[in-house]
């Protein structure tokens, strides 16, 4: 019977092919005259949507959507199915299957660039973008921006980490020094839980302490163009020396769960989301503080941290009207009102400027620790999705290292992987190319050059017009580039030319064909 059913299904599938062939897309006429930002379309109607939020927020989100249905003035009625999908998994789930993904979904900031790249996010309209930029903390707005445009709604601004500790084990006088904390834990046979081997997000703390940077730049589509990464540097070496002190200690535990307090931990480095768990495990013995400092060669370095946020995204829609309704809902769900509700019920730190300023938020102990940690924290920009896997390996390598050369090797290995991300071999890095507003391109396409004799590079024949500007650059980056000196080279007359570059004289010439 099953087989029969299967056969029938297969037949139906075959017959349905005709229907699949051209699934039509209806969209309102874009030529209709309207100022950007003025939304003139009628939105009234019922919309069936799917929402992904963290498990803890399911009930609250349900209430908030009901309230939106009652209060909105556009006549929008949202009929939402709410699924519990953790903010850590939402990005991967969306990318794996956009079609089955939530129309609205909440995700942690680290997945943002990947989601943009995978076209799983819809850009905000002009008015929505304006409203979000005005209402939220600028760091969070930057976190939701790729290129010059906003792609998501800030939901919280509390994705940072600090330290929970057991006051019965750790004396308050020791909380500023990592060495003393380690000694206290070793003496008491307790664990110091600081996630290292499995999470680059926490591991970066040591590098930020010594002033290392890992800043990435993206293009408008979320693709990564370059990175300014100084983990492999003298400062980085100091950082891994500090890290070695921790990972070599028998009391170090690579975990970031407050539940470890129940299995022998005295210190757990985690964030606001674990406040309730820690409170439950430790009761009045719970202490909350910013991260400690470590000491290398007589200098103290205060551990840094990432300061990130959670975002709410809207899945790209083929129907403009439904898209507009979804964006209205997302805007409401991330408004000051809803963020305060979330703070009151779930203790999620708001990203809205007014909500952040409220007394209740200022008085929360976990958020207070986050604020104390803030001077040492680094805003989490867009980070390449592979970085997390590449960087977390440092901890294993550091642990395995036996001397300074081993520590340096850990950093070299990291550096090689980071460079490898942009897939450039040495040949590619040294190759020269022509770029400019030429041949219908606008400074976005490289024309390859070949070395005809030593130090002389030539392009293919190109059709150039008078007044067009161009430059010759190395490794498809702007670190080394030449035109007319440092200025752009300007073409004087129409014609077909070979662009020639003399790397010894650093001059660009045109050879007419």
């Amino acid at each position, binding site marked *: 019977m099953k087989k029969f059913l299967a056969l029938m299904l297969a037949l139906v599938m075959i017959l349905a092919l005709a229907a699949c062939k051209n699934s039509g897309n209806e969209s309102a006429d874009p030529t209709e005259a309207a100022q950007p930002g003025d939304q003139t379309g009628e939105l009234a109607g019922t919309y069936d949507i799917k929402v992904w939020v963290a498990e803890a927020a399911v009930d609250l989100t349900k209430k908030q959507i009901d309230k939106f249905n009652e209060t909105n003035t556009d006549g929008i009625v949202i009929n939402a199915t709410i699924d519990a999908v953790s903010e850590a998994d939402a990005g991967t789930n969306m990318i794996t299957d956009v079609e089955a993904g939530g129309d609205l979904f909440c995700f942690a900031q680290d997945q943002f660039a990947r989601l943009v790249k995978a076209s799983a996010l819809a850009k905000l309209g002009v008015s929505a973008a304006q409203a979000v930029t005005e209402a939220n903390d600028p760091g969070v707005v930057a976190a939701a921006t790729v290129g010059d445009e906003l792609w998501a709604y800030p939901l919280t601004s509390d994705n940072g980490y600090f330290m929970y500790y057991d006051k019965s084990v750790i004396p308050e006088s020791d909380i500023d020094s990592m060495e003393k904390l380690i000694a206290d834990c070793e003496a008491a046979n307790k664990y110091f839980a600081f996630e290292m081997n499995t999470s680059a997000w926490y591991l970066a703390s040591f590098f930020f302490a010594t002033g290392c940077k890992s800043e990435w730049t993206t293009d408008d589509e979320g693709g990564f163009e370059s990175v300014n990464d100084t983990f492999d540097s003298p400062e980085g070496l100091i950082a891994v020396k500090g890290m070695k002190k921790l990972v070599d200690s028998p009391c170090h535990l690579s975990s970031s769960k407050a539940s470890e307090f129940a299995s022998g931990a005295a210190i757990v480095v985690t964030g606001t989301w674990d406040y309730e768990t820690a409170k439950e495990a430790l009761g009045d013995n719970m202490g909350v503080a910013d991260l400690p400092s470590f000491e290398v060669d007589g200098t103290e370095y205060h551990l840094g941290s990432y300061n990130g946020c959670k975002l709410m995204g809207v899945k790209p829609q*083929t129907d403009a009207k439904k898209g507009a309704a979804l964006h209205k809902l997302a805007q409401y769900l991330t408004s000051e009102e809803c963020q305060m509700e979330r703070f009151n019920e779930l203790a999620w730190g708001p990203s809205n400027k007014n909500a952040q300023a409220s007394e209740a938020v200022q008085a929360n102990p976990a958020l207070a620790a986050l604020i104390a940690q803030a001077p040492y924290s680094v805003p989490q920009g867009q980070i390449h999705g592979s970085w997390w896997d590449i960087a977390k390996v440092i901890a294993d390598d550091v642990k395995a290292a036996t001397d300074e050369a081993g520590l340096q090797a850990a950093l070299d290995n990291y550096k090689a992987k980071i460079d490898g991300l942009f897939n450039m071999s040495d040949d590619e890095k040294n190759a020269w190319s022509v770029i400019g507003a030429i041949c219908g391109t606008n400074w976005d396409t490289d024309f390859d050059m070949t070395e005809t004799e030593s130090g002389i590079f030539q392009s293919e024949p190109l059709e150039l017009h008078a007044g067009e500007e161009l430059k010759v650059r190395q490794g498809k980056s702007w670190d080394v580039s030449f035109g007319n000196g440092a200025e752009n080279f300007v073409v004087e007359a129409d014609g077909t030319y070979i662009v020639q570059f003399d790397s010894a004289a650093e001059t660009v010439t045109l050879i007419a064909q």
Partner: protein
Amino acid sequence: MRKYSDVEYLKLSKSKRFLYRFLSFFAGIPGAVWGFIKKIGLAVKGGVSAVGNEFKDVFTTFKNGDWKTRLSYLIMGFGCLARGQILRGLLFLLFEIVFIIYMVVAGAHWLSLLPTLGTKGPSVEYNAVYDQYVTTYNDNSFKILLYGVLTIFFIIAFIYTWRVNVKQNRIAEGILKSGKKLKSGRDDLRSLVDDNFHKTLLALPLTGIIIFTVLPIVFMILVAFTNYDGSHDGYYNNLFTWVGLDNFNTMLSWEAAGGGQSYAATFGEILSWTLIWAFFATFSNYFLGMLVAMMINKKGVYLKKVWRTILVMTIAIPQFISLLYVSKMFAKNGIVNGALLDLNLITKPLPFWEKAGWARVMVILINIWIGIPYLMLIATGILMNIPADLYESAKIDGASGWQQYRKITLPYMLFVTGPYLLTSFTSNMNNFNVIYLLTGGAPTNSAASTAAGSVGYTDLLITWLFKITTGPEAQYYMASVVGIMVFVVVAVISLIVYNLLPSVKNEEDFQ
């Protein structure tokens, strides 16, 4: 090398016999390889001539056939209809009509896009009326590949049916010429529950296998020749397209990839650990399971059922629970380290999952714990089956316990469970559960980890495949390549081992 006769061989000393066998094994390799190549050559030749015969048959049928037959080449089933076999004729005709309609309506469309896998990706436009960015989706590479393959299957089915149709005409002509009557539709239907009953029974399973097993496998294999990954998902961001053998070249190249070591080196490392793991996991379970069964079976052991029940408990608990629990037990702050610390047996926690060597030994040991009960159950039954008089006569001859085991128990066990050993070896090579739930591949192998995903020292090929698919770049094409490689490795090992099995080589030994 000269081949010794049996008598000569028996005259040799023990060490010389071994040397002789060792040398003759290597001397035999070229011959075996040549034999294999010849076999392939013969198979190809056979295949070519079979196809040639089909074409010849089609041609001669046309030449010698009457006008009804000839018209059937164009209008399927015409010959049957004209000769009064209405049911057959209608079925052929119906199939042809369905095929033509399908090809016109959809098939041709998918087939025409198959070489490029689509040309027009999605686009986003600003809609001023709603102040919205609206996406328009166009070609879908995934569907093009899927339906393209489906269409090719359909075409093959059509060609086959057309061939059957031609053959039917020839046979019908022959029957009429010899003065006999053709089968009517009623006869055909009756034969479906009579002499053609196997066809009736197999029709649905076969269709099911083609659609739900063969088609997906072909599809997945084809993915290895595309650039289908997270940033080329074929519909929502970028289309994917054919890249030929590029992915295989990457997998087998010794050039460093993404700042780490080359794919070939990583593949080699993981493959060798996979084989080591499969070997130990299979044989440790096999021999220890047998040992446990023999111990419990021994005369004079009390509470046999209790021991068996205790061991079988591990089967009763789902691996998802037991393995995850055991993994936590051996964690740095787990119960095992805690107990050892409290008893002052150790001064710092043991690195069960943190060092490559420890983790590898641990997974093998834990696998023994969950694997022994299965083997014990199988062995118990087989051991009880060995005729007791064999042991009795051995005892009278003065054989020791070890000799009895080597000469009676082990050969008997190997004969019966040889195929089981082989299947458990291959399934251990693909033992995703144990590795993924216990270690998740940890500890990380920093040289082998690349942008495609991290690789650990306990990763098997199958968990590596999983990590590639779910990694930050979601390289489905690379996962497909790994899948194909796993298949090749498993197939080669299975074929070689299968032919060496006593149950295959000496079929009559224990009958």
